[in-house]
């Protein structure tokens, strides 16, 4: 007769760069149930809207998370701009799109690396992060920051990229695509990676949809849902098609992210071609009043920024619904019944970003 035992996983654990705690109820080698508890990185930054004026708060919004930083800042700006009826110049929208896609590239490469590390493939981890530095170089050259960019502001963007640099970036991506193909080939075709990921952490299409999965987790279970289809920023003018996989397992989630990187490269190159000349910001006057939900696609899925103004320079409320928190219930479902040794891979397969999730 086997006996149930409880194994604590986290908050400080070698595969987790960030703290989350799971109580794993184990019988033999099988996980019967996973009970998550969170709160280790909760800061309470949403209340800072009372202390910072709305244009300054962009810096705080960016620091919700250091990986998806740019998109958080941009989505917050998008929310406030809609609330105040600010007409953002086209060029600024294109620049936001370009930086957003660079962020996605860096985030997905970061994740591929951590994922490789999680399954014990150290060499692949290093290779992914080596490639990621190319992306960071371009981000740093154009915004001044590697991980926290600070280039977005309410009413536009803070910096322009000149035509020569845009061309250079676009051409650089060609070489980058070649190197990326070598890396992705290992993730998708290496036999040990395949056997480590195939049929692990299965989440059916129905469960993914019913439990509210978002982003690559949802798309890997065969649902074509991507906030970029809404056409915010410049996405409406670009040819964007969501990447969908039918495998429903960890391998499919890995494949979605790997293929999305090519999509990002295409989007950046198209945006560089289409970007119009013109101003990059407009002056914002007035005080926000009313409420608005802005939606955008983070590397991890759909993010919702809710802002509520009360006619002063300080917002009354800012609330973020981040992709990770909605992906936790699907993750708990994937964990039920899995082998203990698969836990790190499954947890990482949702690309957990606890910093966002707890704020």
């Amino acid at each position, binding site marked *: 007769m086997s006996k149930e035992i409880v194994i604590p996983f986290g*908050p*400080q*654990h*070698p*595969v987790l*760069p*960030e*703290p989350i705690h799971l109580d794993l109820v184990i019988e033999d080698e099988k996980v019967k149930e996973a009970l998550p508890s969170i*709160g*280790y*990185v*909760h*800061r*309470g*930054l949403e*209340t*800072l809207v009372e*202390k910072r004026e709305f244009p300054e708060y962009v*810096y*705080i919004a960016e*620091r*919700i*998370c*250091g*990986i998806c*930083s740019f998109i958080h800042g941009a989505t917050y700006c998008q929310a406030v701009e809609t609330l105040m009826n600010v007409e953002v110049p086209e060029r600024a929208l294109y620049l936001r799109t370009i930086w957003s896609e660079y962020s996605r590239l860096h985030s997905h490469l*970061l994740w591929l*690396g951590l994922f490789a590390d999680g399954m014990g493939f150290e060499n692949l*981890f*290093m*290779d992914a*992060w*080596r490639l*990621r*530095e190319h992306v*960071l170089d371009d981000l740093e050259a154009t915004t001044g*920051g*590697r*991980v*926290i960019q600070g280039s977005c502001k309410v009413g536009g963007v803070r910096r322009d990229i000149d035509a020569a640099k845009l061309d250079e970036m676009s051409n650089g991506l060609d070489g980058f695509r070649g190197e990326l193909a070598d890396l992705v080939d290992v993730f998708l075709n290496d036999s040990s990676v395949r056997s480590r990921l195939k049929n692990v952490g299965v989440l059916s299409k129905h469960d993914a949809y019913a439990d509210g999965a978002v982003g690559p987790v949802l798309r890997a279970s065969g649902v074509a849902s991507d906030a970029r289809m809404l056409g915010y920023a410049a996405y409406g003018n670009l040819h964007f098609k969501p990447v969908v996989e039918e495998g429903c397992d960890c391998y499919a989630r890995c494949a979605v992210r790997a293929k999305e990187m090519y999509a990002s490269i295409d989007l950046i190159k198209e945006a560089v071609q289409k970007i119009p000349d013109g101003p990059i910001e407009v002056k914002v006057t007035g005080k926000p009043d009313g409420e608005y939900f802005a939606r955008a696609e983070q590397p991890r899925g759909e993010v919702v920024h809710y802002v509520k103004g009360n006619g002063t320079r300080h917002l009354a409320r800012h609330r973020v619904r981040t992709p990770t928190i909605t992906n936790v219930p699907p993750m708990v479902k994937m964990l039920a019944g899995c082998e203990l040794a698969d836990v790190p891979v499954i947890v990482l397969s949702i690309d957990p*970003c*606890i*910093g966002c999730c707890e704020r």
Partner: protein
Amino acid sequence: MAYLKKSPWLLHYDASSCNGCDIEVLACLTPLYDVERFGIINTGNPKHADVFVITGGINEMNRQVVKNIYAQIPDPKVVVAVGVCATSGGVFRECYNIAGGVDQVIPVDVYVPGCAARPESIIDGIVTALGILEEKRTKMKEQEGSA
């Protein structure tokens, strides 16, 4: 400090950072910056670690976790607080759940500035910490000798 006698291993813990500093700590370990060439290894086990690299400020939930990890690292040990969050609470200083920098709960030897801290400054901070580690080790030996 002309050379290292031992390979210092480090343990990284994210107290309540935004991740910005964490991924820069990890970036130090990867090919571009590659601190592994100095024998520095990122370990997951506090009992193997010499250097405690911590990012983010202290909140109510992680106060005890940070103390526990610190207590599990054998002497001599050094603590490096990476980023302004770990130094003083940073941009989140006024948040209701942030008590302040890491030095609220454990002694800190080196503070690395920046938001996010750049890999160059993190490496600089860790190298400074290694000097302090060496001093602590010598002092421990002297005390053992005199006892």
